């Protein structure tokens, strides 16, 4: 199911309605912050790379939503992509792709960057913040669209 963009049209993976459905405005996906769209794209890209079955991710997403429902701190606002991110972190950890310690250490490294680098994921979509000392160069994208 390949669209003209060069990668598969994956919109069928997303639930149209129900608790696991991403937030929409008049049918279109909405993201409240750049990190939300980044988490969204990351999950789809990992799936396209064959790192997991979508159903495995979806199950974890539903479980995260359920456990938030059951035991979130009172006053904490609902965040669909917060649950999405937690589900993704659990899944990549379980699959051995990235360990919990690695994530913690990397997050600390990023947080310790000098302020003039700007906060993480704050740029517009497409903005990449490359640090040669801690990120490998991106492989040339065979699936780069347009």
């Amino acid at each position, binding site marked *: 199911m390949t669209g003209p963009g060069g990668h598969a049209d994956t919109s069928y993976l997303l639930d149209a*309605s129900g*608790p696991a459905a991403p937030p929409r*405005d*008049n049918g279109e996906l909405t993201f409240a912050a750049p990190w939300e769209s980044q988490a969204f794209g990351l999950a789809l890209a990992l799936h396209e790379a064959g790192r997991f079955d979508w159903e495995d991710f979806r199950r974890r997403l539903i479980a995260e*939503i359920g456990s938030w429902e059951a035991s979130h701190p009172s006053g904490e606002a*609902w965040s669909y992509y917060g649950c999405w991110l937690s589900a993704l972190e659990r899944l990549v950890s379980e699959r051995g792709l990235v360990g919990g310690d690695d994530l913690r250490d990397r997050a600390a490294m990023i947080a310790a960057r000098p302020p003039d680098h700007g906060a993480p994921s704050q740029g517009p979509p497409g903005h990449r913040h490359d640090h040669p000392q801690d990120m490998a160069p991106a492989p040339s994208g065979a699936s780069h669209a347009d």
Partner: protein
Amino acid sequence: MDGIHDMGGMQGFGRTMSARADPPFAEPWEGKAFALGLLAIRASGTNLHAFRHAINRVPPAEYLSGYFDRWLMGAQNLLADSGIVSDDEVAARAARLSGREAEEPPPPEPHKPEMTSGGPGNLRSLGTPPAFAVGDAVRTRDLDPAGHTRLPRYVRRRTGTVTAILPAQVFPDSAAHFLGEDPQHVYAVEFASDELWGPGAEPFSLTIDLYEPYLEPTS
């Protein structure tokens, strides 16, 4: 069933809402969220038609209110139908999650329905030829459906013209109740607006897809 969902031609809803945004997902869900949606639907052995019928059975006020996601309520109907989770369990769990005391009843006995599938999707091939041809005048039957149907009230007992023969499909009236796929020929049938709404109607035509059991010849 002649439920709230069958709203073609119903009056009193006011102006169409051109660009209203979808309800936000920031609602704190009530205990019905316990029956988490679509996983539950699969667990209940359902199909698309049974799911639509489950949504259609949501009480009218709740169907229209938008306060509950009616798909989620439909999912709960399916779970109850299949004996996977009962409405009483959901209510009790909701009460307990809200900090109230409630005794949770024992879980029901699952009785997931079995229905043989003729293949993926809903399109089917039939050995028998269609009863009607393009250009035929047909009359819709006066159904009194207790269960699921896709013949809306506003086109019953009306005369129209077949404008296309569509692919044969799984019959929703049967499949929604797990009585079998019973695939039927389907026709695009066109009705004049005054046939549906009387001589004062705006001039237009209405075309609707109708399954063969909904139709009879005009003479």
